């Protein structure tokens, strides 16, 4: 620790910190703009000026920029020095010269860093009397609103977008006080991380367009700590609610998981919660064949009657439902009748992943660990599309080489300009082996294009190169053998190698190969990490729930009298014909939140809660169990699926879920029943947690309109709802402050810090873990004594077939995930389904780009637009934008050109 004096008071900071960080960590309020913990310092805005004194006798001192000053032992600084304070006030005054008179009509207002800093420096009146420069705005697509007049030219946006996230289509144009931050022309921002501009930009230049459409101020929205349901990574989010609607999703800092950033699927994919196709009432199919709404009681008694009617009852769980709901269904139907709602192929991959990870032989990295890996091998995963936040973490990992060079040159890592100057283009090795190009290729040392089987063989070969005990690959081509050698050498040279694969690779042997490489490195005493992505927010949790027996298609093959489907759209999991055959004779109960073909064929539909109307626990691909909380309290019948199921259980006089009245009860039961979940109750404080006898308020202390928002219906104010499952009060009453455990932070807010930058006040060190520890419990921590044997199933090398193509799924960040694909802004970003072919293959069937092709998949004819991808291996056809048919891939297909004139 380095000790120094600020205004005569002793402070201490870490030697690798700059003075600004150290001051903020010490709880001092020092204004800043251009610095960001993830982006480092460039000293551009001059807002963080402080005085530094040479020694005790130096009374004059000299001005330094805190963000560009390393803390030195025994140094003396002053924030309060009148000259420094006046300097900071005049910096703000200059920045505000051209600032429009916009706060009332600015989406940033009330949580604006510029407002906060202006207040902090005390610049209250404009003395500038001349005209202001103005800019025209751009249309940046469905996510981001642009209002360039408000820019203070801090450069945070381009530094994030270009330097941090690797985007190319946002830049700075023009010169001096004309600088303009935008695209070269109007158009949608391409990066899947564009939403972070909303939080990165300290002003209202970039704001959330989806939020603006149903705008409310930060102080007017209830906040709930939540977990993104967009993919398996489990990024932490805050869901903001007002008047029964989800208004927006913002990042919730978790030092080990998502840090400061989310992807656009997670941020903008919430629209389905508010959509009209939500199921809000229980529906029963009457004698006339139509589904009609019934009361809660009638629905339960109908359900109980169905349960009591006898015959085989099966339950199909869901990877997008909470552990609690899946467990409730499992309890209701009995473990032997509970089937995981994966497609057969996905189920096999997930049970493999569950086996590898629960062997505990290998370290599963958190996203923070990923950022610190020094050599990365991606086997088959298109990360930017399948697990976007992980791709962003990998982008930071490859900067390791740059930081190493900086260390050698004695440049602190926060010195962004310096690091970039000494490091040039230096990147740590990243190897990407996928069938199609990915958006990580630009930073890859080697980007390999091969068919899935060949990638798996490469992986097996790498493992064999590292550890001769690993199964060897027979008949490997010289080319692949050389690549394998090179990758193996790089991994062996690394200190923290990382192997990434996942379900999106679509190939079981690829996951086995990834595991083998990690095991081989472990055998060579490397501290290796293995990241295996899963597609949905609770895929891993569900896979851990039953060891192995997963195949619900097999379950459907034997006739059942009653099928209970939990939050699952079966046609995304298996062919429609199989479903028709299985369900024609069975009675069907579906619990889900939105209308789907599966709910439409049900006899009884129960309105299950989405992530916004109930709490629950999800297990991310890291094996991290995380709790999400309820922001919306509705008066309708929507309720957590586990509540519906346990009500039915009781009504059917099954006493297994007798004691479940709150979420804590069911979590305790789950932890008892399944040993792999025994740590679950530690995920978050229990529902009777209090700070000094107070609940945690879910509404900010200046939540407005309490006595008017419901008065349109009835002037008598309703009693506030009660959150039975959590320590939150549903109002502004309670304790909010430093003692709130991090898993329960409903928003980040601190005195004088109204913007999201207030997260500084909740961290142990700036950019580090949250005070009290990052939320979530890692269920599958590696153990040194644990062992896992090598996988031996090396596949045959890929052999193209005449007139046939191996259809593989190419993931898409927008549209693949079922729920977010219902949100209008996400739909705008979806592209029509396409089929990608190598140019030579396309020439073989004499087709040109843009042409409509047809192929039979899963017994149905699919029309797809041809895209030529010259890098794609021959004999492989990439199918994108057809996630609903993902269960039917990989498969050999025939491709024909659509008859002209057919749609």
């Amino acid at each position: 620790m380095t000790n120094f004096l600020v205004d005569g008071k002793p402070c201490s900071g870490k030697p690798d910190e700059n003075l600004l960080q150290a001051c903020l960590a010490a709880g001092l309020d020092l204004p800043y703009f251009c610095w960001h913990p993830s982006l480092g310092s460039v000293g551009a805005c001059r807002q963080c000026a402080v005085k530094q004194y040479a020694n005790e006798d130096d009374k004059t001192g000299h001005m330094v920029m805190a963000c560009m000053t390393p803390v030195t032992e025994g140094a003396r600084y002053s924030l309060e020095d009148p000259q420094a304070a006046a300097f900071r006030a005049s910096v703000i005054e200059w920045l505000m010269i051209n600032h429009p008179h916009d706060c009332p009509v600015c989406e940033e207002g009330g949580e604006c860093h510029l407002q906060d800093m202006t207040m902090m420096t005390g610049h209250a009146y404009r003395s500038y009397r001349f005209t202001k420069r103005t800019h025209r705005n751009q249309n940046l697509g469905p996510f981001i609103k642009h209002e360039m007049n408000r820019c203070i030219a801090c450069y945070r946006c381009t530094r994030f977008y270009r330097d941090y996230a690797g985007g190319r289509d946002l830049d700075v144009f023009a010169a001096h006080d004309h600088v303009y931050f935008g695209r070269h022309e109007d158009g949608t921002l391409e990066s899947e991380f564009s939403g972070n501009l909303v939080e990165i930009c300290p002003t209202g230049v970039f704001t959330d367009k989806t939020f603006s459409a149903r705008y409310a101020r930060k102080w007017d929205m209830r906040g709930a700590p939540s977990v993104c349901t967009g993919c398996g990574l489990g990024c932490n989010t805050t869901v903001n609610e007002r008047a029964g609607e989800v208004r927006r999703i913002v990042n919730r800092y978790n030092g080990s998981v998502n840090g400061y950033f989310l992807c656009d699927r997670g941020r903008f994919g919430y629209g389905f919660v508010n959509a009209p196709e939500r199921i809000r009432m229980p529906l029963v199919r009457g004698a006339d064949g139509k589904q009609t709404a019934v009361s809660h009681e009638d629905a339960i008694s109908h359900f109980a009657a169905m349960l009591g009617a006898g015959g085989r009852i099966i339950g199909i769980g869901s990877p997008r439902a909470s552990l609690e709901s899946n467990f409730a269904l499992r309890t209701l139907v009995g473990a032997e009748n509970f089937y995981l709602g994966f497609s057969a192929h996905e189920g096999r991959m997930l049970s493999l992943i569950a086996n590898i990870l629960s062997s505990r032989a290998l370290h599963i990295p958190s996203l923070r660990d990923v950022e610190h890996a020094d050599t990365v091998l991606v086997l088959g995963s298109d990360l930017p599309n399948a697990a976007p936040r992980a791709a962003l973490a990998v982008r930071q990992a490859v900067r390791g080489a740059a930081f190493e060079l900086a260390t050698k040159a004695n440049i602190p890592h926060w010195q962004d300009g310096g690091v970039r100057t000494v490091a040039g283009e230096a990147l740590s090795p990243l190897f990407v082996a996928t069938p199609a190009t990915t958006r990580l290729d630009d930073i890859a040392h080697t980007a390999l294009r091969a068919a899935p089987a060949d990638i798996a063989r490469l992986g097996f070969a790498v493992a064999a190169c590292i550890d001769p005990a690993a199964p060897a690959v027979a008949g490997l081509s010289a080319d692949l053998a050389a690549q394998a050698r090179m990758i193996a050498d790089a991994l062996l040279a690394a200190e923290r190698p990382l192997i990434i694969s996942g379900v999106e690779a679509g190939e079981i042997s690829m996951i086995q190969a990834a595991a083998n490489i990690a095991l081989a490195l472990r055998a060579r005493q490397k501290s290796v990490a293995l990241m295996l992505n899963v597609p949905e927010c609770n895929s891993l949790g569900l896979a851990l729930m039953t060891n192995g027996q997963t195949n619900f298609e097999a379950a459907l093959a034997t006739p059942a009298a009653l099928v209970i489907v939990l939050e699952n759209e079966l046609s995304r999991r298996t062919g429609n014909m199989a479903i028709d055959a299985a369900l024609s004779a069975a009675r069907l109960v579906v619990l889900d939140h939105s209308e789907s073909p599966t709910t439409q064929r049900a006899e009884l539909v129960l309105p299950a809660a989405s992530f916004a109307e109930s709490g629950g626990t999800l297990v991310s691909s890291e094996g991290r169990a995380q709790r999400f909380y309820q922001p919306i309290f509705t008066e309708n019948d929507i309720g957590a699926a586990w509540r519906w199921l346990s009500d039915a259980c009781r009504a059917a006089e099954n006493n297994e879920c007798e004691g479940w009245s709150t979420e804590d009860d069911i979590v305790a039961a789950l932890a008892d029943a399944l040993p792999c979940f025994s740590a679950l109750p530690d995920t978050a404080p229990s529902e009777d947690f209090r700070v000094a006898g107070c609940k945690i308020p879910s509404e900010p202390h200046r939540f407005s309109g309490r006595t008017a928002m419901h008065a349109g219906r009835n002037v008598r104010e309703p009693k506030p709802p009660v959150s039975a499952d959590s320590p939150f009060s549903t109002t502004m009453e309670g304790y909010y402050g430093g003692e709130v455990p991090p898993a329960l932070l409903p928003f980040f807010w601190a005195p004088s810090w109204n913007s999201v930058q207030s997260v500084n006040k909740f961290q142990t060190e700036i950019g580090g873990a949250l005070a009290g520890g990052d939320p979530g419990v890692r269920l599958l921590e590696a153990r040194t004594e644990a062992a896992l044997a090598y996988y031996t199933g090396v596949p045959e090398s890929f052999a193209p077939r005449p007139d046939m193509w191996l259809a593989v799924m190419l993931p898409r960040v927008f549209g693949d995930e079922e729920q977010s694909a219902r949100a209008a802004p996400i739909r705008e970003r979806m592209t029509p389904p396409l089929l990608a072919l190598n140019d030579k293959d396309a020439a073989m069937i004499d087709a040109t780009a843009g042409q409509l092709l047809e192929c039979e998949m899963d017994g149905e004819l699919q029309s797809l637009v041809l895209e030529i991808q010259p890098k794609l291996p021959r004999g492989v056809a990439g199918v994108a934008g057809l996630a609903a048919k993902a269960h039917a891939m990989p498969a050999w297909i025939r491709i024909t050109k659509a008859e002209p004139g057919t749609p």
Partner: protein
Amino acid sequence: MLSSVRTLWYTFLHLFQRNVTVPYPEQMPYLAPRTRGRIILSRDPDGEERCVSCYLCAVACPVDCISLQKTEDEGRWYPEFFRINFSRCIFCGFCEEACPTYAIQLTPDFEMSEYIRQNLVYEKEDLLISGTGKYPDYSFYRVAGLAIPGKDKGEAEGERKPIDIRSLMP
């Protein structure tokens, strides 16, 4: 003791003063324009709704009796609904103080008793008047930087024409 006697004495003296009670409602009292009575929403000099739906009145209101929802029409913010629950309002005038556009104003009218409490809930139709109220000249959008129909970028007061970012001139 002494103070009680003094109070009685002053009260006694009031017997000899002029009567201030007026026969209301036959004779209406004079109320200065600043009197804090029934709240209205005014229009700007161009006849457009002044309220820009900034939520500042709502947050300033100590009894939380103002509720509204922002919506937008070609860049112009305005309230989709705007509701005041006058059965809660304490006529403190904080909303008027907070309003950056002079939209919300308290007027000298206080005659708004109702037998049914629900009738004290006023919606935007009930609040919006057709004039500018106490402030005849101010128009927020003429000052603000947002472009709205009829006022492009650079056309607000004190603004220069928008920058041509492709120009190389200093």
